[in-house]
């Protein structure tokens, strides 16, 4: 995972509060947790995808949903990669689109940080009912 909490400093985003009492530091872990919650509540998403070949071989859908989100900081803006498993039989492009919107909206609203990009990676489909 690129948003590793051990690498201190680099993976935190600092925000100047409007009233100067101190600074607010937001861990990228917090951002990825929220982003995956937003993705999971979108219709059509049935799980977050595990990263890495070993993990994904053991558990196709991530056990810790934070695993499905990578957060980067590009020029003081957040860039998110969201790895999802979708339900077979839904229109993939529309679902991916609404995932991107939901993630962006939720993150911007909660943290008040600008989101530059949300890249949705459809890592697999779950087939509940083959037609």
């Amino acid at each position, binding site marked *: 995972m690129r948003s590793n909490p051990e690498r201190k400093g680099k993976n935190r985003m600092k925000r100047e509060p409007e009233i100067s009492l101190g600074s607010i530091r937001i861990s990228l872990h917090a951002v990825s947790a929220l982003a995956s919650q937003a993705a999971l509540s979108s219709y059509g*998403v049935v799980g977050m995808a595990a990263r890495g070949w070993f993990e994904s071989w053991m558990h196709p859908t991530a056990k810790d949903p934070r695993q499905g989100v990578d957060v980067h900081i590009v020029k003081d803006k957040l860039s998110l990669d969201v790895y999802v498993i979708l339900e077979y039989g839904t229109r993939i492009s529309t679902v991916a689109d609404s995932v991107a919107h939901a993630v962006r909206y939720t993150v911007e609203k909660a943290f008040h940080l600008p989101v530059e990009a949300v890249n949705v990676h459809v890592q697999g489909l779950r087939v509940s009912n083959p037609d």
Partner: protein
Amino acid sequence: MSTFRGCALAIRIDDTHPFGRMPEMTLPSHPKDLPPTTVPIPPASTIDGKLLKKLVYAGLTWLNTNQQTINSLNVFPVPDGDTGTNMSLTMQAAWQEVAKNDSANAGQIAHSIAHGALMGARGNSGVIFSQIWRGIARSLDAQNEIDAGLFARAWKEARETAYKGVVRPVEGTILTVASDIATAAEKARCEGCHFPELIFRVVDAADQSVQRTPELLPVLHQAGVVDAGGKGLFFFLEGMQRYLEGKPLDKPLMSVPPLSSLDLSLAEEFVEEGQDFEIVVDFIPSAPLDLQHFYASLEHMGTSIQIGQGDDLYRMHIHVPTDKRYEPIDFILQLGTVSKVAMENLQEQTSLHHKKPDSSDIVFRKVQSGQIAAVAVSPGTGLTRVFASLGISAVVPGGQSMNPSTQEILNAFSELPAEKIIILPNNKNIIMAAEQTKALTKKQIAVIPSRTIPQGIAAMLAFQNDGELEAVRQAMNKAIDGIQSGELTLATRSVEMNGVRVAEGQFIGMLNGTLVTTGNTLEESLMKLLRKMGVENHELVTLYWGERLTHQSANQLTDKVRAAFPAQQVESYEGGQPHYFFILSVE
């Protein structure tokens, strides 16, 4: 019977509606084999492919007719609803697919619909809608006809397929409505119901389910609306019922908005050529009003028709040509007791209207290299003029609901010869965009965190062209603190915020960005807001009136403020801003 089924909000949109006409969609061509919709279909115990196709077309038509009603069911105060449009477009794609299929086999038709809906699914509700159809199609398989048992099984499968598409299903949405429909279909089957009774039962269940959505989903309750996706599904099914009953599908059922949401001052701004008189009639109908017929009759007489209701009283507003000025009154006299008539000559009124402010004569302050230039975000011509008189060098058009981008702000000052720039965002949502210009230019930038126009103006009073950027920034920041800013606008929907209850169409007053007062008239809410701002303890009140007001009405209100607060100095300027009737400051 399908009387009007308690929709939370119905807006009548005509050409003269202040917010303009919403984009319209074109319906696919009418299939030739549809019988005229005025002839009721004889009851049949099963549905075959041909009838299913007709029912789907009827559902789509009714959905299209009511899509604006669905769009208006927003959860957020900003008008951004598109659920109705999305569902309509999804079903329209389904129709285009099924129109090619002439099979009499119900299963094959359902598969075509499911395929078309999947390919054309738009938005969340569209995707769920397509999943519902997928479930129905799977359970129908290749059956020729749908009977009660198959109907119940199809809805059960639809429910299951729809719920499988999401990890955490949210109740109080279209999913709940689909689930309640499945339960009702099963119950109706057990009680030995047949078509078309089955469809009616399902429509009833959908209606009740939609009405319950606010109980299940708190955001809906707060916003005072029902779920838009569920309402869409209901309209689709109700279209089928209306078709079976032989009712028309192309005219939306209308509800009457409450009197408080009637804003006749807005209609005044949209006077058409030849519509010389404005007539407002208050009346009590002797029999329940047939709205469809009432509107249709009025449409022959004039334009800008608005109707509001309070208790038993109705209020009708219309613009008519001179020779027809008594017609609406005579017409309403036949319907009941007229309690009040108001008639105004619009030509006279409009000639008194001030012409739109012209921006061509505004002169910005010239700056030279080495000096400091100030750039402000301004929502209106009048405010730009005020800022220009205070010494800004460039302006970025924008404000509430039209936030300029970082690039637009950058463009405003990149050509200026000064290397030191001060930006006044004048809106809390623009501060961030203004800050981001720092990374994109070599110039020295200081952003003054002004959240309102009065703050920006107060800051400009402390502005100087020469000197150190940091010193000027500090002086301007300090000037912001001492000012109280108020804004007065209309509520776009009913809501409860900070313990203040607002109904749609009421005036709301905001103090430093927080909702503090409401009122039914502009004057009432202006006075309330001024009191909240603690005018008595200050010396100067400044009013900037917006584009929705005329010179005349702004002057009248200013005089009333002067009379109410004789100890204070009151100044009034034309701000020309949209949305806000007044922006005011007290210092």
